[in-house]
């Protein structure tokens, strides 16, 4: 189909969706606005939230609808109210559209009816606005704390505009400060996993309620590494600087975040990215996917003690890392994506290098797959383990290989084409079994697809500029930017502000949507499989460079130097 013809049909499809919502909820709708080519904002009253959001998400005919992100914002300085917006995307090749259901919440009565009872996928989002903005979801089935630490004082909301980013409220830590975990079901023992555990890559605490070795129920506590990046982005940094901190959200899928952020700003500021830059972005995103999937497949082997597969996968990955280093100067955190394009061009002679590396990777990876799948003990451990049904996958709005392993037909690259994906041809592998093996197979096939995408991109890449010039971005525009990170859809939402600064920035990493579904996948399995199931979701982890020692009682903070830390560790290991 010609590019312009496709655009027109796309618009027709989009308008059909929006008009159906408008038809149905005529008098409840206060404003309909199109804020970017594939993004509509529909404003409603807060009382109607569960009905409207539930209607769109649970629409029987719309394919693979899901809650892509939900954002609370403190718009009191501008409008005297808080705002909330639920972004719902429609996927499955049935139209590239994001619908934002927006509502305003008065300052003196910061409450809204929770959407979670209608769509469990809203669970974390609504707890988060409660923690960070003090907007209370009424009727929420699980109103415990999510983001803030246990000793954070009540009534202090860090994302409100009157909370200065340097503020550090006095913690009210007592010996009784404890997180209210679920009561263990009758006759079960608690099997604590983490926050520090050899096989967990990030600090996360799981409580497995077990009978013998069988997992009866699961509870968790996360956000040990909440760094307040959104607050820094809104207060300290300019648009361009935010791009680089966005890349540092994650140690594995940084480019996906940087790209999502840049695309959000480009949508809000109506910046046209040169075609060559789009291709370069695509190649970088795919290189990132290659190394991330190889990492995950390797770890899956490691978690079941199959170290040969682990080492081989990491050896393959190393070549991808070297390739990235040659192209960008870094093994990770490429620093390629900037608003309006990319920072570095691909030099012509590097092309043959990329081609050679991915050709070798293709051959060797095929061998790796054959070897691993012919290891019966490995397959036995993965088959039928950690099953997440399609219904649960949809209910929690899961994304990425985790969702595709359960039969969800969605992929942001195909359904909401960004960068150069609209010009390229590729398959989206889908498995219906929903077990660990299905997720591994999805990743394995995606690696081959990524290689194919890179090959096409190198063939078709046009010449020209790599960076569009932009002067100013109009204030108070809203937009979402989205990418398909290795772990699934990443969504960044921005409200632009004055003085080259963001007004609101909301990051939604793919793991945020996948994580709440984990208990459903773990129930009924054994302790032995717990780590494998967690790894098969591929949780995203982030790294800190330094260690802070916080005395919980006095609240004193001291930063250790590397030398002190080394000495402390040595001392500890000698048992002195």
């Amino acid at each position: 189909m010609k590019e312009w013809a496709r655009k027109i049909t796309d618009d027709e499809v989009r308008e059909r969706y929006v008009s159906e919502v408008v038809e149905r909820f005529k008098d409840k709708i206060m404003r309909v606005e199109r804020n970017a080519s594939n993004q509509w904002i529909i404003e409603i009253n807060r009382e109607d939230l569960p009905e409207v959001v539930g209607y769109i998400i649970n629409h029987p005919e719309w394919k693979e609808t899901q809650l892509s992100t939900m954002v609370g914002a403190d718009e009191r300085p501008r409008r005297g109210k808080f705002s909330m917006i639920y972004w719902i995307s429609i996927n499955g090749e049935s139209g590239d559209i994001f619908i934002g259901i927006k509502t305003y919440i008065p300052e003196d009565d910061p409450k809204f009816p929770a959407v979670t009872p209608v769509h469990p996928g809203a669970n974390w989002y609504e707890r988060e606005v409660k923690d960070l903005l003090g907007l209370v979801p009424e009727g929420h089935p699980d109103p415990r704390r999510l983001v803030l630490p246990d000793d954070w004082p009540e009534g202090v909301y860090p994302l409100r505009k009157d909370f200065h980013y340097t503020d550090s409220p006095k913690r009210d830590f007592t010996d009784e400060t404890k997180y209210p975990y679920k009561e263990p079901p009758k006759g079960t023992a608690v099997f604590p996993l983490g926050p520090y555990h050899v096989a967990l890559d990030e600090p996360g605490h799981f409580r497995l309620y077990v009978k013998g070795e069988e997992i009866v129920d699961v509870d968790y506590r996360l956000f040990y590494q909440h760094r307040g990046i959104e607050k820094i982005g809104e207060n300290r940094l300019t648009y361009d600087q935010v791009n680089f901190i966005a890349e540092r959200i994650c140690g594995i899928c940084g480019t996906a975040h940087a790209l999502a952020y840049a695309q959000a700003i480009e949508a809000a500021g109506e910046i046209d990215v040169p075609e060559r830059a789009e291709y370069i972005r695509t190649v970088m995103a795919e290189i990132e996917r290659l190394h991330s999937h190889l990492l995950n497949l390797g770890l899956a082997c490691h978690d079941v003690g199959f170290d040969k597969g682990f080492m081989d996968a990491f050896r393959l990955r190393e070549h991808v890392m070297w390739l990235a280093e040659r192209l960008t100067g870094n093994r990770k955190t490429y620093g390629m994506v900037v608003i309006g394009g990319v920072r570095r061009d691909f030099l012509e002679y590097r092309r043959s290098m990329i081609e050679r590396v991915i050709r070798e990777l293709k051959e060797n990876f095929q061998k790796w797959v054959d070897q691993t799948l012919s290891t019966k003990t490995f397959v036995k451990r993965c088959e039928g383990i950690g099953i997440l049904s399609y219904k649960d996958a949809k209910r929690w709005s899961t994304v990425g290989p985790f969702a595709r392993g359960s039969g969800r037909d969605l992929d942001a690259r195909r359904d909401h084409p960004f960068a150069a994906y609209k010009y390229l041809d590729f398959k989206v592998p889908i498995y219906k079994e929903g077990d660990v093996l299905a997720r591994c197979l999805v990743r394995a096939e995606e690696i081959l697809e990524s290689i194919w995408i890179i090959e096409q991109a190198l063939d078709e890449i046009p010449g020209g500029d790599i960076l569009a010039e932009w002067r100013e971005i109009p204030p108070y525009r809203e937009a979402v930017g989205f990418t398909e990170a290795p772990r699934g859809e990443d969504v960044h939402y921005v409200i632009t502000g004055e003085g080259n600064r963001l007004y609101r920035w909301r990051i939604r990493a793919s793991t945020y949507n996948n994580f709440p579904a984990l208990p459903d996948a773990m129930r009924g399995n054994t302790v032995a499989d717990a780590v494998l199931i967690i790894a098969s979701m591929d949780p995203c982890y982030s790294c800190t460079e330094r260690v802070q020692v916080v005395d919980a009682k006095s609240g004193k903070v001291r930063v250790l130097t590397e030398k002190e830390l080394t000495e402390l560790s040595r001392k500890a290991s000698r048992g002195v």
Partner: protein
Amino acid sequence: MEGYERITFSFIAVCLILFLPPLLDGIARKIKAKVQLRQGASIFQTYYDIMTFLSMEPVYPTERLSFRLAPYIAFASAVSAALVLPYGKVIPVSFTGDIFVFLYVLAMVSIAYMIGGFSLNNTYTNTGANREMMIMLSIEPVLGVAIGTFALNAHTLRMGAIPFAVTFTVSVLLAYALLAYSVYVEGGFIPFDVAEAEQEILEGTFCEYSGYLLGIFKWALMIKRFALLWLLSSFISIPPIRNVANGTLGGALILITQLIVLFLLYAGIAVIESMNARLRIDHIIRKNAGVFLCSLAVLALAALGW
């Protein structure tokens, strides 16, 4: 001369029992590294590890005596198990009925592991101990039947005498297969290392041990593996050459053959280990139960004199 030979071989035996297992482990690690195309640590690395452990004070998570004693019990049991086996023609400790002692002290190593694990209120150590118990209960009968079949055939209840008297029949050949399987499982090699699975349960009981207690415990488990494999290697290497090996030189020949077979077995196991993933405990129990049923058939064959 008899006395000197006995003393010399017994001395060699004790040295082998105590100091060879870490080397075997180091070689296995090197082989695994090579299979994974890694450089790998030196083959003496396990000695260094144990020396480091032995030089460190442990941290005691509990006051219970059973926690402190468990590593020593394991060590003593493992060494005693190895002592009833033949080294050359000499058996350091031998008396009628020592095949029962062998099975019993071998089980004691597992029991010590369980005592250590259950003396703490920690779900990781408890799970490790629990798994060890299940594996032991499901594999010891198989080992018992295998050895019993040999004893029935050789008409002796002395462990060390069996390989010198065994004759080849159908049931004995099948007993070799059973013996190899139970040695592999009992040794806790991948895919049967669930009781010490690092990624799943932080090495089970070991997650609370540290310092020299951990060193002794790990060493004990290596000696147990040595005892099991020495048993298998003796049963394989002695029967073919027992008639040509005469006198002291013959004893030395047997010992050298035993050692060579032991190294080959260990190397083979290292390769199998690196090509496999760890099974789950329920998989293992099911497998062991099936093997146990087969072993009963073998025992029946042996009783019929086949």
